[in-house]
């Protein structure tokens, strides 16, 4: 690990100004991912600006309904919030499916959104990786890619985004509040992330110094009937092999509205809009749900080692939505 400086800024504006103005400066949240990457040599920041003492640790009603969640809220606290549990169970379930109790106690909402891929080549600085060292190549396509992307990848990168929380937020249509050098702004979660294309090192649309200050959940009544299903290689403390976040609104046996997002299958938390479209107005049956999954998966480009994710996603989407349909009758 390289030597680094550490600062605790007095306010968000100061934090933003410092990081924007300082080469090699980064924000430090819970440190559950960044510090690991520093030990591995993947990250070598010269300055850590600790934002965990800033007043971004509250969960409060949003002006237009919904919830405004401070970016510094710990994952454990968010999962335990009664409003989240009642109105957005998919989010509480996703949070509790992630990491371990100890890590959730440290990890922040903002940091969770920005965690880096678990691709083995990204994490090993002795090997090529287009994301870590642009232009050096991608050994994953011919090497281990069992848990890498089947959707949204490119020839240069098939990394997957590892977050559970972000998959639930994608399904809920969350809005991300950002403070930048030019002031605050808000963007849809989908606008936060970039697909890799030819620039896998650019993972978000954030500029240097942009600080995520809050995540806003819009009001979504039928999210009371939502669920997160995480498939993983062991019963706990493992990243997803595939995950599904869904909320379903059924009226008279027909799908009136639906939200569907997939995890561990793409470089970003994957909102399955094609699948959603394929369900609207159709009978809330397993056949519809499987058809929706297949519509979403039509664009899948799996490799030899992760082709199994195609039927897996199809099965899990069908199972989760069928379960939600059953519970809404």
């Amino acid at each position, binding site marked *: 690990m390289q030597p680094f400086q550490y600062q605790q800024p007095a306010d968000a504006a100061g934090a933003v100004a410092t990081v924007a103005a300082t080469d090699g400066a980064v924000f430090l949240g819970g440190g559950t991912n960044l510090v690991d990457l520093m030990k591995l040599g993947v990250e070598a920041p010269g300055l850590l600006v600790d934002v965990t003492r800033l007043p971004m640790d509250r969960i409060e009603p949003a002006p237009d309904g919904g919830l405004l969640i401070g970016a510094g809220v710990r994952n454990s606290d968010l999962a335990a919030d009664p409003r989240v549990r009642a109105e957005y169970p998919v989010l509480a379930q996703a949070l509790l499916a992630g990491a371990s109790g100890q890590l959730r106690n440290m990890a922040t909402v903002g940091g969770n959104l920005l965690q880096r891929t678990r691709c083995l080549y990204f994490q090993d600085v002795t090997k090529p990786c287009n994301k870590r060292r642009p232009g050096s190549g991608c050994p994953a396509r011919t090497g*281990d890619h069992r848990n890498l992307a089947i959707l949204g990848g490119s020839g240069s990168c098939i990394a997957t985004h590892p977050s559970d929380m972000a998959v639930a937020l994608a399904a809920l249509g969350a809005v991300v509040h950002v403070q930048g050098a030019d002031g605050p702004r808000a963007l849809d979660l989908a606008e936060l992330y970039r697909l890799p294309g030819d620039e896998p090192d650019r993972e978000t649309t954030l500029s240097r110094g942009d600080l995520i200050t809050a995540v806003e959940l819009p009001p979504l009544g039928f999210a009371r009937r939502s669920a997160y299903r995480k498939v993983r290689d062991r019963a706990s403390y493992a990243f997803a092999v595939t995950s599904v976040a869904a909320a379903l609104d059924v009226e008279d046996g027909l799908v009136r509205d639906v939200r569907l997002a997939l995890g561990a299958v793409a470089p970003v938390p994957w909102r399955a809009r094609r699948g959603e479209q394929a369900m609207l107005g159709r009978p809330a049956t397993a056949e519809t749900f499987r058809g929706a999954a297949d519509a979403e998966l039509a664009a899948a480009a799996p490799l030899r080692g992760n082709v199994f994710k195609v039927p897996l996603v199809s099965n899990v989407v069908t199972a989760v939505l069928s379960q939600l349909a059953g519970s809404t009758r």
Partner: protein
Amino acid sequence: MNATVDTPQAGRMTRVDGPDKVTGRARYAFEHPVDAAVYAWPVQSTIAKGEIRDTDAGAALALPGVLAVLTPDNAPRLTADDPELALFQTRAVAYRGQLVAAVVATTLETARAAADLVRIDYAEAPHDVTLTPDHRGLYKPDKVNPNFPTDTEAGDPDGAFAAAPVRVDKMYRTPGEHNNPMEPHATIAWWDGDRLTVFDATQGPSRAATIIAGVFGLQPGQVRVIAEHVGGGFGAKGTPRPNVILAAMAARAVGRPVKCVLSRQQMFAVVGHRAPSIQRVRLGADENGRLTAIVHDVIGQTSTIKEFAEQTAVATRHMYAAPNRRTTHRMVRLDVPTPAWMRAPGECPGMFALESAMDELAVACGIDPVELRIRNEPAVEPESGKPFSSRNLVACLREGAAWFGWTDRDPSPGARRDGPWLTGTGVAASTYPARAMASQALVSVDATGHYVVSIAAVDIGTGARTALLAVAAGALGVPADHVTLRIGDSELPPAMIAGGSMGNASWSWAVTDACRALREQIRARDGAIPAGGLSAQSSTGDAIGALPDHARYSFGAQFAEVRVDADTGEVRVPRLLGVFAAGRIVVPVMARSQFIGGMTMGLSMALHEESMIDPQFGDYPNHDLASYHIAANADVGDIDARWIDEDEPELGPAGAKGIGEVGIVGTAAAIANAVYHATGIRIRDLPIRLDKLLL
């Protein structure tokens, strides 16, 4: 044979060092405070095969706090027989991750940062790291670990198999697996003149001292190895690994004590692991399931610099009766890290194959798998004709079946469903050799009646400290709190390592003999202890050498219940029961922990553990505990270990066969057999991951 030692206090004992461990008072190797210590951090090769052309330590040496950089250009010459310990003695690179240089610095962080700055230029050669059943480099090793015959044959196995009415002929594969003890390999080393002292995470202080002395050209008495507490080893700390040599070499180079601890990632290359195996098992039987032929052919791998030929088919030599039989081992030398011992080397991967094949035979014959095993129980060791000193596999199977609720099992595969879950049950047998090795012990008593028992045993988390205290107190006939037990130091009387499930049997033998001798002295003095105290020593080599030529093994029966999610292929194991016959169980609390620990590791082997080899780079890329999965708490459901009372008359006064390894053997097969019962899908290549059950 001397009488069994009575240990009346053992049934009430709990782990004697438990309070020290949970309060942090117990010191592990790296934690000992040592004045003026500095730190060593190794540099690993980034190629799998080739030569070091040039090294440049300039940038590393320029970093403030860096004291030395050791490379093949400047490292002192060693006299190591073991190429894995011949640190920086050659410019040849045999595998990716091999230690090729090291930095010594005033802080761990500086050493680690400087290690990244050491520039090594390689002449890289093409590497081959892929084991295949028809590899052109296949060869027959002279023996398999530790000194078993490579091949055995009796009767006409090919003819009998061809003529058998019922045949199973299948290939099984086990992946590379890493021991991953919780405590990483760690050493603190310092020199006083030509005397070397190390705090080391080792399974055997006596053997470690001898080996380290050999590497540095010293007499064994010039090296002292202290291992007060060790956080697991599973074979990976059975003998010194490069961390010990590096710490000692660095300490000599800078003239200060040196601390060296390996990272988890480094451990995947340089401390040994279980090599992958490809196994073909052929079973021929009559319609009643009586075996007429058993053939077990194994292909394994080792590195190019050191042969470790795992004895994978050896358990097949004594498990079941059959007149016609053959076992073979073939190896390939690949450009891979050197494999070594990992908990039940040989039995563990081999019994996955044999016990899976037995389940397939039970299906083919339409016979209950418990009954099939009972029908093939041998009266004597099948290949040698030797009598068993004690053998209670059948009792384990019968009692286990009763406890588990096996009796009414419907054998149909894929026939039971509970919501999304397919459910099933499976059984497999377990075995492990029961042996003891020569050890010595010293016991003294002072005028107050306080006893000190000394032996260079070591407690690697097994509960050895507790068991030996129970044995010593029992042999002396005094309360345990009248006895101080000294272990974990090579200056104590030399003893067997904590390995091969031989620790307790070997040490308790020496301890009992010494305690009995002292008790005799006291008795001869009518109980009067002189002011200067008394002492007695023991040495068990002659008694062990005089053991009758019998076959000695532990046995067990493993029962598993599994649930498989029909949508996702996820496997859960709600219930595991192991029933073991392992001689006398000395301290029940410790023994239960050993058994269920082994079974948990077997579950982990069944479902999770896989050291993937990356043909592009030649390494194990999933070299951390985030990507190399071991079973977590949530993976382990209702797990229970029981044992039957077994009289083992020969193996020392404790009558204990050793329980460190029998718990892991067979677990993976029991789970794979249960997965077949649940789903109708037979998984012959571990681990049983969800994708294999999905497609």
